[in-house]
Each structure stands twice: as C-alpha cells, then as structure tokens.
C-alpha cells in the first residue's frame, strides 16, 4: 500500500467515522456543550466580579483579584483540572456523589474567569471617565453608574476577545476526561479517542475535531458580525435638523 493511501485511510476511513458518528452526536456533543456552556456562564459571572474587584478603590478587593488572576492564568489547565477535580473529589462525593462534572465545570470556570476577568477589566477601563461623571451627575451611585453605564459599554468593546475565550473553553472542556468519565459522560474528544484506540484508526478523532470546528468557527463569525453591528450602530441616518444643526454626520472623533 502506498504511503498516501495509508495516510488517507488513517484519517478518512468513512466506515470508522460512520460508526462513531451517532454516539458523537447523541452523547459527545451534548456533553461538550454542557461542560462548555455551564463553565462559560459561571466563568463569565466570576470574571465580571474579578474585573470589578480589579478596578476597585479598595486594595482588599484589588489584591485578591490580582493574585487569583496570576495563579489561574499561570497554571496549566490540565494541572488545575486535576488539582480541583481530584483534590476536591472527596468533598464532592459527600455533596453530589461520584459525578466528575461539577468539579470539572468548576475547574474550567475558575480558569476561564481569570482570563475573562482581564478581558472585561480592559474593556471597562477603556470607557472614558467622562461617562462615569455623566452618570454620577444625574444622581446615580458609583455602583449604579458602573452597572448601567460603564460595564455594558466596556463589555461591548471586548466581545470578540470574550468569545475567543469561550472558544478556548470549548476546546479545554476535552481535558475533563482526566477526571475519569463513565460511558454516558464522555464528551467529543473522549469518544473520538476511544474509537480511535479500539480501531487503531484516527478517523473518529478527526471526526471529533470536525465537531469542534463546527462549534468554534461559526462562533467566531457570529461575534464578528455582532461586533460590526454594535460598532456601526443601526443603519445610519444623517442628522437632518429642522432648525440650525446642519452639520454633516458627526463622527466620534470630530468632537475632540
């Protein structure tokens, strides 16, 4: 057999793929989504808290946020997942039994929060101080001004970076297999790997890879589309003022 067809059969053996596909879609995909979506939600909430703590005037909020971020960004994801998933397992056992998912999701969330916190913080800090002053002048408290005016603007500015992090999360969810999964808990990667191991053919793993791409590539494009829309606002209509204002479309930069 010539090397080319060997390569082809190693990666594109349709029978192997067809065999793995049903389980990939009914077990692997839902499990990957459960892991990634839960960790994305929890990680984003924690990240937002970290971001706000990170810009707080109180050092008792700022420093812990700083230390947390340094630690969880600095550790390899696999190490964090094992440390939390295995280290806290006895505790988890008492609360929800032997299911590794809660701790897996917790570990993924804690890692994601460190990165998302930095992303949100940079977005929030990019909002002009004048916006805070404008909100405070209306009588809003600092907390309300942040919640209603500053944070929403800051997060919009970093949407693409945030989605990058969610993509990383989808990929990192594969690491939960370290914690030992029963058959019904296996996510995309583990199912692909299992089929590849039993058949000695990598096609099922390649199929898992394609499933990851089917999740991550559209996500990038959707967020770019949303980002463009937010940047440009809704379809622009030039100001047509009845009385005095006959200025051309006022761009952001013109005011400076």
């Amino acid at each position, binding site marked *: 057999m010539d090397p080319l067809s060997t390569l082809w059969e190693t990666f594109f053996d349709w029978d192997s793929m067809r065999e793995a596909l049903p389980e990939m879609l009914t077990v692997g995909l839902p499990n990957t989504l459960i892991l990634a979506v839960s960790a994305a939600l929890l990680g984003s909430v924690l990240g937002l808290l970290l971001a706000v703590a990170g810009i707080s005037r109180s050092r008792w909020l700022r420093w812990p946020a700083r230390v947390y971020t340094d630690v969880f960004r600095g550790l390899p994801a696999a190490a964090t997942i094992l440390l939390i998933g295995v280290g806290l397992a006895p505790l988890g056992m008492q609360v929800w039994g032997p299911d590794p998912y809660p701790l897996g999701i917790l570990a993924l969330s804690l890692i994601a929060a460190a990165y998302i916190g930095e992303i949100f913080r940079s977005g929030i800090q990019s909002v002009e101080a*004048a*916006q805070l*002053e*404008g*909100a*405070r*002048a*209306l*009588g*809003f*408290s600092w907390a*309300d001004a942040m919640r*209603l*005016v500053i944070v*929403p*603007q800051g997060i*919009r500015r970093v949407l693409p970076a945030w989605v990058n992090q969610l993509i990383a999360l989808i990929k990192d969810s594969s690491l939960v297999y370290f914690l030992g999964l029963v058959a019904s808990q296996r996510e995309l990667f583990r199912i692909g790997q299992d089929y590849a191991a039993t058949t000695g053919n990598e096609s099922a793993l390649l199929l898992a890879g394609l499933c990851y791409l089917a999740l991550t590539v559209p996500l990038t494009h959707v967020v770019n589309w949303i980002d463009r829309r937010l940047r440009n*606002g*809704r379809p*622009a*209509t*030039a*100001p047509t*003022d*009845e*009385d*005095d*204002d*006959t*200025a*051309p*479309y*006022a*761009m*952001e930069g*013109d*005011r400076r």
Partner: protein
Amino acid sequence: MTAASTTSVSLDVRDVHLAFGPNRVLRGVDLSVPRGATACVIGPSGSGKSTLLRTINRLIEPDRGDVLLDGRSVRGDDPDALRQRVGMVFQQFNLFPHMSVLRNVTLALRRLRKLGEDEADALARAQLELVGLAGKANSRPAQLSGGQQQRVAIARALALRPEVMLFDEATSALDPELVKGVLGVMADLSAAGMTMVVVTHEMGFARQVADTVAFMDRGVVLEAGPPEAVFERAEHPRLRRFLDQVL
C-alpha cells in the same frame, strides 16, 4: 420651557477651597445666584471654573467651604440625592452611546425616580420636544450632530426637574454653526426662571443673558457684577487684560 421657574431655588457658594496636592485650584470662592437668576463664570483656562462647578454638585468634594441651596447647606446631604437636584451639562455632552436618545433621557427617570416606562417615555418625549429633538428619540447619540447631542444632554438633565442647572463650557466642543441652537435653548431656560451657573467663553451670551458675570482667575472670583459693569467698567487690570484678549 415651562415649569422650570416653579422649581428653581437660590444658590450660594461660600468660601470654597480645594487643592490637588500643592496645586491650590480654588482659593476661597464666593458666588451668589438668586432664585431664577443666571450667573456666567468667565476667565482664562486653568482658573478653576470647571472645578468650581464640580464642587457645587460635589462631583469633587471641596476641602473647605459650603454650598447652600435655597439658603440651606447641602454639606450633610447625600451627594447622589443632591445631584438629582442640581443638573449638569458637560463640554463633551457625556451622553451614553450605547443607548438611544430616549433611553438616555429616561434612564434616571426610571431607575432613580422609579417612574413606569410609559410615564418616563412621555416625560422624556416632552422634554426632547422642548429642545427641538422630538424626532430623534430613537436615534443613537452618534447619529446626531454635536449641537443636537448637547441639546439631548440638556433635556436629560432637565427631565429630572432640577432646581439649579450647571453648564460647563456647553458650547466649546461645537462647530461654530451649531453653537447658536444650544445657546438658544440655554437662554430660553434662563428666561423661564431656572437658576443657572454657566461657565462659558461666549461673551455675547454672558452679556445678553446673565444677571451676574463673575470673573475667575487663579482660583478666586476677582470681580463680579451685572454684565454691563463687568464688560464696560472692568476695574481689575487682569479682567481688563482678559477682556481685551477675548472681545
């Protein structure tokens, strides 16, 4: 521009001091604005005019001195509650770009005044109507010209029915042809009896609209009086030099 006259109160600034480190920005400022009157504050840049405005609504806390509304000190008041009574308009408008014009105006009505959506919308639309922008309620700030944005900012402040209005170089960031519309709205408001403190470089406006013109230099009010006295019979040499440069 109705209803303003019924709610406005007198404003007294008494011996306000403020230093940023060694830099003494305000060195004992006094300013009295009777109910319904307009005071224009003029002076070179860096003289403390904008800082003075911010100590009135306590965006900046003064080191010393007092501010009285309707004869009563506001020093012990909650600053957030005070700022609902004292409206402020900024040089750069400070509209919220992620919200429609209408939502810019209704935000404080709904969140602070706890009005329902319909009531807040009606009030905001009425206020936008008064500044000639009823048709722009659903636009985003970035879709408006600078002059229109500043009028939205004025409507946003007025919607809370403030008792005093502060204007911080409200027309300085505008193209010359847009200045008139904003000054017109401010003059109407003054005529309707709003108590106003206007920091401005528009000497024509100060001359026509102000009841009092105060000249600030290096953190103090050097000279204050009716516009004709300040502009025609300036006593202080620094004021005369300033007027020579700007008129």
